[in-house]
């Protein structure tokens, strides 16, 4: 299996997510993550979809996605020539005796503490998946209460 990133320009019509996810389910492909939001084109949304498929089925899934009337454009983004970002919110157990250690760890990853309570802090981090996983590994021993992990968003590097 291999990971492919599809960046799609779509019309934000009712049922679009169902159409896309239904197509993947029907054709037997796995979706790793899917995010969507407004794009630079008025009325069009950009959807970043991470699919776990071999390259030949990927071509088939791309063709099938292109047949969806609400899908305007699809490009595949290569990780080595793209900026990839994921967003993470982690609630970590942190009583006053360890709170400073957790805060330092977060700073090492250029993550931010965005909420502090008596027994826990919330850490916010942005980056590529490997960095976020490293942060998670280090926070694990303190006791992770909750993880909220966004899907991947990505943009091609360069002028175009």
């Amino acid at each position, binding site marked *: 299996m291999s990971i492919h990133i599809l960046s799609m320009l779509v019309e934000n019509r009712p049922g679009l997510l*169902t159409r896309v996810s239904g197509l993947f389910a029907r054709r037997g492909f796995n979706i790793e993550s899917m995010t969507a939001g407004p794009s630079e084109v008025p009325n069009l949304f950009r959807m970043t979809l991470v699919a776990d498929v071999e390259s030949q089925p*990927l071509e088939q899934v791309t063709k099938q996605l292109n047949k969806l*009337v609400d899908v305007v*454009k*699809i490009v*595949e983004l290569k990780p080595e020539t793209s900026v990839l970002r994921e967003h993470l919110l982690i609630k970590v157990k942190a009583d006053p005796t360890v709170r400073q250690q957790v805060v330092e760890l977060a700073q090492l990853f250029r993550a931010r503490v965005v909420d502090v309570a008596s027994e826990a802090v919330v850490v916010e981090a942005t980056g590529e998946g490997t960095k976020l996983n490293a942060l998670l590994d280090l926070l694990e021993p303190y006791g992770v209460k909750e993880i909220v992990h966004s899907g991947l968003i990505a943009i091609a590097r360069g002028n175009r």
Partner: protein
Amino acid sequence: MSTATTKYVRRYRTVASTVPSPATVHPHTRACLQPARNPEEGEPMTQENMLTGAQIVVRCLEEFRVTDVFGLPGGAILPVYDALGASASISRMVLHQQQSAGHAAMGYALSTGRPGVCVAGSGPAAMGLVSVLQDALVDSVPMVAITGQVRSDLIGTDAFQEADVVGASLPVTKHSLQVTRAEDVAPALASAWELATTGRPGPVLVDITQDAQEGAAAFQWPLRVDLPGFHPVTKPNAKQVRQAAVRLAASQRPVLYVGGGVVRADAAAALRALAEACGAPVVTTMPALGVMPDGHPQYLGMPGMYGTVPAVLALQRADLVVALGARFADRVTGRASTFAPMAKVVHVDIDPAEISKLREADVPIVGDLAEVLGDLLPVYREVSAHGHADLAPWWGYLNGLRSSYPTTEDAPDRLLSPQRVLRRLGELSGPDSYFATGSGLHQVWAANALPLQEPGHFLSPCGAGTAGFGLPAALGAKRAHPEATVWAVEGDNGFQISGSELAVCAAAGLPVKVVVLNNGSLGMARQWQTLFFDGNRVDTDLQSSPSPTEWVPDFAKLAEAYGARGITVSDPSQVDAAVREALSTNDRPVVLNVLVSPDTMVWPMVPDGVSNDFIQYRRGQAPVFDSEAGA
């Protein structure tokens, strides 16, 4: 950006014209998209006045030059019916259930090339169209289904007869839309029409809430259709076309593998011209039957699970398969990895997603079949003028198969041979007749036995295999071709599914003719149980009496009850007379109840999931095919 995906990237465009460029539109559609009035002035008709959403539905259908709609009034679609009742140019055909209405629309579409239009209410009525949409999708039949929906303020409340039909239809439509405001009705229908008829045809569902039908809006026509994500490629790549011509000229064992795309593109004449220019054998899938006239010396019949021995083995021995509007369906290929193992593949289709989906294409060509064939023939002539392969050894092999393994007519138990009945039916009815089938043994017998001469005359649920399709589809075809002879070919169980539509035929004065190949069983399933489940026939024998004359119901009597003529045929000597009697009865429908042994099977056959090399000519009899040109 990977090259794999950029090939299929679509260009963004902000506004598309309502009238697509002529090249992208099916010829039948082109006429429909012209402004309906003031053709002399040459200016598009534009008028603005307030209409209800329901009236706008009808006005749009009139602008599309729809002449017939098939459906049932009820509940949330009544405003549309109210407006339809006032239309001078649209006839309505009411059937007994929505699936039949949809199949009638398909029969209309398959026999004319124009979109079928069906109309249904909300909830279960709309859901009754779901299997029809699947039929139309898998066979690429242009269809617009209009369903009523509960008022928009009730959506999501589990209201009476509320169902999420747009959700249910997503996997079985080319596109589906919901309209909740009167002003959105016309844009939705214009989009639906363009989508259903342009590129690879297919079904589009438009679900309209009751308040959208009742609300008022200005009607403007023509209007712009904005579909930035939809622009099919119709013009083929010239280099690829040349590649195909070069391969075809060089091939020593070519086969033209013709599918329904050639019919949808109205390209049968171009296909015949190419076939005759290159001399290659032609096989046609079930949706393409008639593209090559039965009896043509280059025509080998239907390939696949229930195909002829020459058609199946030609593909297995080919060095070049030219797939034209065909999709390498499992019923054609058998185990795909062993299909046509020695062949290079030229694959032409208007849908890029079909190319290399199941079989890697050596020469992929995306385009409209009419354009591709139009381009390919002159290039082939030019290329082959410099030399082409000698096909005589190949034809020697194929003609050997033809004479060794002709189609057969079986009649165990001295009952009727269904193949012979169908052949005589076709011969006596003539080449202009239409034949609509359900799904099962009778369908396969008909596909192989009817002497079809033109495409669009064999109307069948090919890819979906929906039982009960025959009679309503025949009704739709008869509506479109009132002067033609239209036969429904059904099995006894299929006729029990939709036979009640005989009442519609009788009441509407549509003298459809029906032949029920009555074997008192679910014949196809029974055959499989006989062959692959050690004869353990579970629930496939439908009759308790061994004597066919005691089977229930008596279809001849049932026909009379519906106001049709009913004739039971139990002896081979009665066949011609019964068929002639049916052909001369035109004041009402006719039902021929043809008694067939439950043990009559379809042969040849390739067992499910194995290589087509394992084709059986008769039960337990494999053809000998590794002779001279074979290896």
